[in-house]
Structure formats: structure tokens, C-alpha cells
């Protein structure tokens, strides 16, 4: 990747990766380090303000690209975007009722853990760990589902998988936050 092409490249081109859901994370990291070196501010210490500004823009583009391709959900969203499918999730609220019910039940389980962690025999952290594991397993299945739909050019289905993955990601964050909270409380 030459420096002049950075802002004109898509995220995959930037790291010389094939446009695919399957990403070689080691290569991604190597290419990322290479570009970072190329764009390091020290190299522009004596450059014009314009060049400094440009290299900063390039750096932020490269950082965004790396963060996007590293994350399986963001990567999926980006792939669809490259195919002209925008995921405006903001005002789209209806979906598979069974799935939403599961999400609700999951949140209820978390609430129970939050409320009862002091007066229960179960180890709350072990409970959360097993929930996190469940989430991870179903996220892996969903990613698999996305990969298959995407490979088959079924972008509508691919999009549905992404919408579900968004919920799962949020739920995972909540499990982690709750575990951190409980750990803090138990220590005090």
C-alpha cells in the first residue's frame, strides 16, 4: 500500500486482504503495524502543516479500518455496505418475535443475578460465565449464518443475521459489565 492511495482504498485493500468475511487476523495486524509505521507522526515532524493534516486523516482512516475488520459484527456490516446495502438500524424495530423473547428472558436472567448475588448459593460469577459462554456459542452460529448467506449473495438474510448479532453484542457487554460490578462488590 503506498501512502497516496490510503484514503481511496477500502478497508480490505488497505491491508491487502481479499474482500471476504473470513479475515486473516494475523495478516491484518501485521499490515496495520506497517501502515502505522509509515504514518507515524515523527516522520512528519519537519513536514508542512498540510502534510501533517493529511497523515492524521490517513491515520484515523487506518485505525477505523483496523477496528472494523477486527470486529466480526462491524466487519459484517461493512461488507454489506461495500455491496451497497446500508444497515440503518435506528428505526427498524420489528423482528422475529421468538428471538426478541429470548433476548428479554436473557435480560431477566441478568436482572435476577444482579438482584440476588448476595443471598444465593450459586456463585454469581460462575452463572455469568456460563451465560457468556452461551452467548458466545450462539454468536458463533450467527456469524456462520452470516458468512453462508453472504457467500451465497443472500444479502437480505445476511442483514437479518447482523441485526441479531447486534443484540447479542449488546447482551455480551451487559454480562461483562455486570460481572465487573459484582466482582467489585464482592471485594469490598
Amino acid at each position, binding site marked *: 500500500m503506498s501512502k497516496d492511495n490510503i484514503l481511496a482504498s477500502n478497508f480490505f485493500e488497505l491491508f491487502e486482504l481479499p474482500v471476504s468475511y473470513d479475515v486473516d487476523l494475523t495478516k491484518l495486524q501485521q499490515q496495520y503495524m506497517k501502515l502505522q509505521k509509515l504514518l507515524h507522526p515523527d516522520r512528519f515532524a519537519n513536514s508542512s502543516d498540510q502534510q501533517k493534516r493529511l497523515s492524521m486523516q490517513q491515520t484515523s482512516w487506518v485505525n477505523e479500518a483496523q477496528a472494523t475488520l477486527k470486529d466480526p459484527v462491524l466487519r459484517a456490516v461493512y461488507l454489506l455496505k461495500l455491496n451497497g446495502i446500508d444497515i440503518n*438500524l*435506528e*428505526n*427498524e*424495530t*420489528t*423482528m422475529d*418475535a421468538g428471538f*426478541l*423473547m429470548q*433476548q*428479554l428472558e436473557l*435480560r431477566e436472567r441478568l*436482572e435476577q443475578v444482579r438482584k440476588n448475588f448476595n443471598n444465593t448459593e450459586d456463585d454469581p460469577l460462575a452463572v455469568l460465565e456460563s451465560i457468556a459462554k452461551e452467548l458466545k456459542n450462539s454468536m458463533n452460529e450467527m456469524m456462520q449464518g452470516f458468512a453462508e448467506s453472504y457467500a451465497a449473495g443472500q444479502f437480505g438474510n445476511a442483514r437479518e443475521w*447482523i*441485526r*441479531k448479532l*447486534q*443484540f447479542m*453484542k*449488546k*447482551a455480551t457487554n451487559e454480562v461483562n459489565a455486570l460481572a465487573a460490578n459484582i466482582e467489585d462488590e464482592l471485594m469490598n
Partner: protein
Amino acid sequence: MAYGEKVLDHYENPRNVGSFENANNVGTGMVGAPACGDVMKLQIKVNDNGVIEDAVFKTYGCGSAIASSSLLTEWVKGKTLAEARQIKNTQIAEELALPPVKIHCSVLAEDAINAAIADYQKKQTI
């Protein structure tokens, strides 16, 4: 972000939190916002005259989503289904003084009541 007074009030003292047993006169609306992962369940109990007698909700999400659903359950009680369908998210957003980034929470509430009404009506045709 600073929440408005009414949002805080509904958030801290949410009205009508709960669930109804599934029955023929109960309509359930399930909606979710993939962007923020919020999930909302809103249920209505409808009498023989097509009037919403009672409404409950369960929302897992931010303060604005909880406040929007809490407010909405208050508003729909005593209304006919047709009247309830008239409620627009903009009215909720205005009442709660939601900032622009939280408007989608009021959309969620509007979609939830419409989904609940649709669910109830579907049950009546079977």
C-alpha cells in the same frame, strides 16, 4: 447525558411494569432496537367494547426507552384501539423532551403499541 425531569420520573418510578398471562383479550407487542440492543414488551388488555382496560410493559434498555414505554402505558389506558393507534412517537418525544439522539426510543414505544394492537386483532379473527 442529562435526562429531563419527566424522563427521570418515569425511569425512577416506572408505571405499569409487569406482564399479563396470555389470553384472548390480551395483545402483546415485542419490539427491539438493534442499534442499541434495547428490547421492549408491551401488553394491552382489551374489553368487549374495544377499549384498552389495562397496559403493562417490560423494557430492557436506556432510561429514555423505559420512560417512553412507561408513559405510553399510561396514555393508552381507557383509549379505544383506534385512538391508541393515533399516538405518535413525536408526542412521546415531546412530552418527555427527548433529545434528538433518543428519538428512536419513542419510535420503539410507538411500534410496540401498534404491534400489541395487531397481535390482539389477529387473535380476534381466529
